[in-house]
């Protein structure tokens, strides 16, 4: 009986020692508190336009309106009563009002009804009025030539920087219908600049 008591006492003592060893660690913690404040990608468009109408015979008209309230940004150019040799021109300013550089990654041009755009390369274009509805740019349907000149790097607009784009549309025979009016909407898509891969 006494031997059993001694053995039991020893077992209890060993158990207490083991438990004590298992919980013998103090600990101290150092903390890294990280805050990441991300920048803002924000572009603002503005547009001015004019035409070559004689002030004494102001037959045709052009207006341009920008949409900056929601993304993507867009510009709408409306032409009224165009005639052969009528020319509109203007400048679209793309200003980076955000805090990170921006890159133009894509654009859409929404054309007036029945107008076909042919890209000649080098920011030069021809416009055709598809009178016969065959969706082909027939030579006799040529209604205008157009072009863009980009001053600056559209592929990398730094914060605070403005890239102007000058444009013109020259209406011409033989395809321009009488009393033609139409609206062009250009939508621009941007993303933040990233270092090259």
């Amino acid at each position, binding site marked *: 009986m006494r031997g059993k008591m001694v053995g039991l006492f020893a077992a209890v003592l060993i158990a207490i020692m083991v438990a004590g*060893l298992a919980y*013998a*660690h*103090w*600990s*101290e*913690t*150092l*903390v*890294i*508190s*990280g*805050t*990441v*404040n*991300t*920048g*803002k*990608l924000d572009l603002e468009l503005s547009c001015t336009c004019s035409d070559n109408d004689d002030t004494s015979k102001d037959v045709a008209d052009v207006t341009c309106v920008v949409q900056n309230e929601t993304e993507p940004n867009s510009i709408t150019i409306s032409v009224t009563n165009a005639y052969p040799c009528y020319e509109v021109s203007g400048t679209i300013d793309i200003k980076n009002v*955000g*805090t*990170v*550089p921006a890159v133009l990654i894509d654009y859409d041009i929404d054309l007036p009804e029945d107008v076909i755009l042919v890209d000649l390369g080098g920011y030069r274009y021809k416009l055709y009025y598809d009178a016969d509805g065959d969706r082909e740019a027939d030579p006799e349907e040529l209604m205008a030539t157009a072009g863009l000149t980009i001053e600056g790097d559209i592929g990398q607009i*730094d*914060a605070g920087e403005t890239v102007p784009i000058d444009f013109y549309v020259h209406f011409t025979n033989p395809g321009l219908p009488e009393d033609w009016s139409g609206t062009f909407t250009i939508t621009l898509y941007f993303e*933040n*600049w*990233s*270092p*090259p*891969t």
Partner: protein
Amino acid sequence: MDTSELDWEFESGSFTSKDVGNDWTCDSSCNPPSISNIRQGTKDIASTTGEFVDSDGDGDLDTLKVTVSNAYPCYYNHIDFWVHNNGEVPLIISKVIIDGHVYTASPVILCLDLNGDGNLDIIIRYGNSFGTQLEYCDSANISFDFHILQNAPEGQSLSFTIQIVAENWSP
């Protein structure tokens, strides 16, 4: 019976950031997590600062506040600093907890959704300091790096926490 004290701290003035001048970037993946091809870019857009703080007023610098400003997807930085055993017993760095994820061994690298929108915002890689033993008055260098991911939201403030746990050395 008087017991000893386990105590350690960040070393004042030891914060360094790789982003000095033009920003750095890297390639990264979250499946599985990896960082590679670290390289410097051609623009200085974002910045990172560090500040050591004694948050509990006991005289030890126990918190490092790291602040990234004007961050953008693809921004990378590497941070390192020194820690110092200013207690009375040797200690061992035993555990790292990053936003609730517990690690007791390397590798420590994970992608995190910091704002709960379902998109991963950042990948963090913590250097291997597990098992580092600091004797009394000894110091060690610790580092981590991070890469802002493509889906990080713009114009927001995101937070993360890294807890570095040391335990007293024992035989």
